[in-house]
């Protein structure tokens, strides 16, 4: 079997986001970037399935500017076999990303596509589901446990009420929850080896897909600041404030 695993390069989750004064977006210059955290889980799971012998090949893909190749290199260092970088210099909405992935899927013919459940920058939570619809494949979103069978995949997924178990036919889309696994760190020898693994480059705008964004971002602003609170002297005062002033207990 073959897995295509998609990862996005985003601002590192530990970075304090700064909104630009002109409201056009957030500062990204000289900001630490990393792989979107749930995409790390997707890469880890793909590699684990390969190590188990059930999967023969793992192909890692990212879409973005040249520097996004780092994301693919990292996946190769974790254990993916080869990489694809789709060069795109400006923001593409999930709908466009899904269309690009669909084209790649039609060529690569994987049995499964793994993605993170959501990107922590635009927080859209759409790409996996959209890709599934475009391919007319079943989907296993927010997956926290997988059991790969010959022609199907049994998954446990995180839902608001608890857990849900589903079985989906292959080929299928899997979006990964943080609970799926503990992503490993790449070892130095593997990072060196990854530099020799093949990486193909495609150009998004030459793929024959209409990538016009449909959503205009009019303004980005800071969320309302919280009013400075007070320090209480002791536990009794705290409880009294919560009971009589804030009236929340």
């Amino acid at each position, binding site marked *: 079997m073959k897995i295509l695993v998609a990862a996005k390069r985003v601002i590192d*989750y*530990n*970075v*304090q*986001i700064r909104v630009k004064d002109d409201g056009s977006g*957030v500062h990204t210059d000289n900001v630490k970037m990393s792989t979107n955290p*749930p995409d790390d889980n997707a890469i880890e799971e793909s590699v684990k399935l390969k190590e188990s012998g059930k999967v023969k090949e793992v192909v890692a893909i990212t879409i973005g500017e040249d520097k996004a190749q780092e994301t693919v290199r990292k996946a190769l260092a974790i254990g993916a076999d080869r990489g694809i970088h789709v060069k795109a210099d400006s923001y593409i909405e999930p*709908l466009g990303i899904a269309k690009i992935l669909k084209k790649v899927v039609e060529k690569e013919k994987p049995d499964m596509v793994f993605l993170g459940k959501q990107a922590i*920058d635009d927080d859209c*939570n*759409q*790409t*996996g*589901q*959209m*890709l*599934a*619809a475009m391919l007319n*494949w*079943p*989907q296993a979103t*927010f997956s926290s446990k997988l059991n790969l069978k010959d022609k199907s995949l049994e998954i446990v997924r995180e*839902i*608001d*009420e*608890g*857990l849900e*178990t*589903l079985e*989906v*036919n292959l080929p*299928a889309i899997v979006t990964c929850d*943080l*609970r799926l696994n503990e992503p490993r760190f790449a070892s130095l020898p593997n990072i060196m080896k990854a530099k020799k693994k093949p990486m193909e480059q495609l150009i998004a705008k030459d793929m024959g897909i209409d990538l016009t*964004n449909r*959503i*205009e*971002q*009019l*303004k*980005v602003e*800071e*969320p309302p600041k*919280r*009013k*400075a*609170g*007070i*320090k*209480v002297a*002791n*536990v*009794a005062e*705290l*409880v009294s404030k*919560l*009971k009589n002033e*804030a009236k*929340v*207990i």
Partner: protein
Amino acid sequence: MSVLLIAEHDNAKLKPFTLNAITAASKMNTDVHVLIAGNNCANVAKEISSIPLVKKVLVCDSPNYQNYLPENLAPLVTKVSEKYDHIVVSANTFGKNFMPRVAAALDVSQVSDIIKVISSDTFMRPIYAGNAFATVKSNDKKKCITIRPTSFESAEKSGGSAEIEKVEAVNVPNTSRFIKREETKSERPELGTARIVVSGGRGLESGDNFKLINDIADKLNAAVGASRAAVDAGYISNDHQVGQTGKVVVPDLYIAVGISGAIQHLAGMKESKIIVAINKDSEAPIFSVADYGLEADLFTALPEFLAELNKLNTIQK
């Protein structure tokens, strides 16, 4: 044209977040129609028809929709949406699962998780886990929108009498099978929707010490949360994690104990109505977002807190 809202229910009863989504939908267009896809869900249809903001109820009753598998549900919603300009659902695991499939089928760029309706095509939504708010305008003719339920009031439940109309089921692909659903069997409320959340951080020093947090949570009928640091240290399982990479919570009261307030934690809780911080480090960033800060050693403060709560005659549930 009218708004189509997809109801979330368990075939017997309406799920409460649908009421918040109805309020949001009514701000896009007052002609709100609600689609219920389920199995033997006539009672849910009746319940919805009495909501005054709802003008029409569409029911599709078929075993195919028993467990709202997205592969089955999306083609139905796509077909019904032909007559509508806005297709709306709450942005919880129900709505997030199928709405992008509908959007893709309609070739529409979905607007996810909105917190404000500015006009029928312009919305506000949080990005970067709420560290920034984006105002966005959808230029698609049809709009697929998911709404953050906690940002909208819940709609009035009684007094209306909308007509109920049947909708034919559509073919399903039979590519996925529901096996089971295990609802979290906790005595405590669910973290994502609890009115009060008590969270512990690395300051707890061990998993056993989370008992101090649990005791307070039980007394307040609260959910138990944790910082990523506490989860990474193995004190508690990661389904309790509050933050950018965990759950985003908006309770009436959030009590952060032994949590310094890393950016990624703040992103998950700073929209809470009242925030309490208990920390022995006076410089901890958590104090900058706290309404009430108590600078104290948690190992003495928490037992005292419990004792004070026990003294109260009544505690809100």
